């Protein structure tokens, strides 16, 4: 198992390096001069060159990359052009917020989606199945930012039960005020993965139940609950990887939701970095998010190998 893990880790290195190159190049491929937004409109050519040198933009690209990577490895992602604060701090805070939102949404979506999917798969082609699938399809196809706005109108504007914006005043704390800010964005964010997880689970459960060995399990005298245990263990590896991928989407795919709810996470940070042409910030955020995906994939692979004996571990 350890060997398997180390080998997977080894595979990850070139991927991570590739990711970093792409992130670095992003800034140089993006149209426009990264400095326009910070430079005075009437800056002289000399001032421009000085600024360029200050940000290291005058050196050849490979050198710039080497310097950038060297610093990035030490946790120095440069300074945000717009705020002047270290990018690493900004990204760190945003990642923490996004993680919190993603986990809250997962905590809702995975158990609900899994239960719904199991119900539908177990009672395949019955009214339960049809009901669950209608819910799942609605969840996947409703535009979720629209749903977010509807929820805000109902629960914040009309009923006044829940806050609509931000993550609460001051630093995050595990108290009712701060947690109440988490509710609406988490619910909104959970809707799509509920649908996706439910559909996948239904297909998986249906597939396993139709396999010969299930009949063989009944033939040897197991009761329905024992058989269900076998089915769960068979579904688990694939189910887990689907949830891993969903968690990844939740982390990176919530730009719209974070914007709708003003949630100070990575999505929110990304959109403001884009609109302010804050390239170091953009670069740093994308790098961290991309590496997150890579690590998450690694974690899912390893977890899958740990619970699925059919995956070669040596």
């Amino acid at each position, binding site marked *: 198992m350890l060997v398997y893990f180390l080998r997977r880790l080894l595979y990850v290195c070139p991927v991570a390096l590739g990711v970093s190159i792409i992130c670095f190049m992003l800034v140089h491929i993006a149209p426009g001069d990264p400095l326009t937004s910070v430079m005075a409109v009437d800056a002289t050519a000399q001032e421009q060159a000085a600024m360029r040198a200050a940000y290291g933009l005058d050196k050849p690209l490979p050198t710039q990359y080497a310097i950038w990577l060297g610093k990035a490895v030490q946790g120095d992602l440069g300074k945000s052009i717009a705020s002047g604060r270290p990018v690493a701090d900004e990204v760190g805070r945003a990642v923490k917020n996004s993680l919190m939102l993603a986990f809250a949404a997962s905590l809702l979506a995975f158990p609900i989606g899994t239960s719904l999917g199991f119900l539908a798969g177990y009672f395949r082609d019955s009214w339960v199945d049809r009901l669950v699938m209608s819910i799942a399809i609605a969840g996947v196809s409703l535009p979720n930012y629209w749903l977010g706005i509807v929820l805000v109108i109902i629960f914040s504007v009309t009923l006044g039960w829940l806050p609509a914006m931000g993550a609460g005043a001051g630093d995050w704390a595990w108290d009712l005020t701060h947690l109440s800010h988490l509710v609406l964005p988490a619910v909104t964010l959970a809707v799509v993965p509920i649908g996706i997880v439910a559909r996948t689970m239904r297909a998986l459960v249906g597939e396993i139940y139709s396999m*010969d060995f299930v009949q*063989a399990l009944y033939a040897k005298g197991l009761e329905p609950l*024992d058989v269900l245990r*076998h089915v769960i263990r068979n579904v688990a590896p694939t189910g887990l990887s689907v949830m891993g991928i969903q968690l990844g989407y939740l982390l990176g795919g919530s730009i719209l939701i974070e914007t709708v709810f003003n949630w100070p996470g990575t999505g929110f940070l990304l959109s403001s970095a884009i609109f302010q042409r804050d390239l170091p910030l953009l670069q740093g955020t994308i790098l961290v998010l991309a590496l997150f995906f890579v690590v998450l994939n690694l974690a899912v692979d390893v977890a899958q190998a740990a619970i699925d004996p*059919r995956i070669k571990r040596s």
Partner: protein
Amino acid sequence: MTSSPLLQIRDLNVRFHGERTVHAINGLNLSLGHGEMLGLLGESGSGKSVTLKTLLRLLPPKRTMIDGSIEVNGTDIMTLSGKRLSRYRGGDVSMVFQEPALALDPVYTVGEQIAETVMRHRGIGRREAMEVALDMLVKVRIPSPERRLKNYPHEMSGGMRQRAMIALALSCRPKLLLADEPTTALDATVQIQILLLLRELQKEFGMSIIFVTHDIGVAVEIADRVAVMYAGNIVEEGSIHDIIRDPRHPYTRGLLSANLHDVARGTRLEAIPGAPPALNIKPASCQFAPRCAHVMPACTSALPPFVSPGEGRRVACLLERGRELA
């Protein structure tokens, strides 16, 4: 104890409802004694697997209409449900399937799967059950059984998996083993080994076996008695010796002439011209008539009754009546 049979099937009918209705079993009668080895022979679709699955009540209850009675050791198994049904399955009667690769759960070790059955039926602890499992692997002669106990099915060869499946099926000492083409998916040499093993274990455990096969060669190898099925019913039954020496039903003769001149193993029973009937209506006449070279007008007007041409034999064919009169 009297000589009451271990298994008694009376007038069994099985019908599937779905997009189309299938009359899979039509008025089947069969009895099996203690320690007897019966070969169940017939073309694809003749209802062999359905018969076995009905015996274990494995068919989907919603889509299946079953009537008739099945008694195992005096117990009416059609009325079993819940705990009593689970105790019966795998306890009194167990099953070995055609494809061991598909019939074992891929994510549990072979040892766990055997032990699970033992724990269920004998109410003993995990460690003890594992010892039974190990014992069983020794009995089915799997090499290095301690190691194999911890193997997953995919880590074993086909023959080894089938041995493990047999170990599982026999782990609770059933009185009746249902073997649904247990050697069809295996290589010829492995086939023989498995057959020999089954015969040996049958003697050792004193159980009865119903052995389903396409292959007359296999039936000759293993069975005391054979029953030939066609269109959901038995058309001829007798000792393997009698049937081979003197087959009566034209269908049985067709099967034998197609296969038996060199009792080749691995050949399938398909060489009779024509196709089996569709089974969409309940049979009211000889179902073999469209393919029979001896067909008479009476054959298509009523079901041919069973005639007994000798001790322990029966045949459902109108030709027998002519013989009797002659």
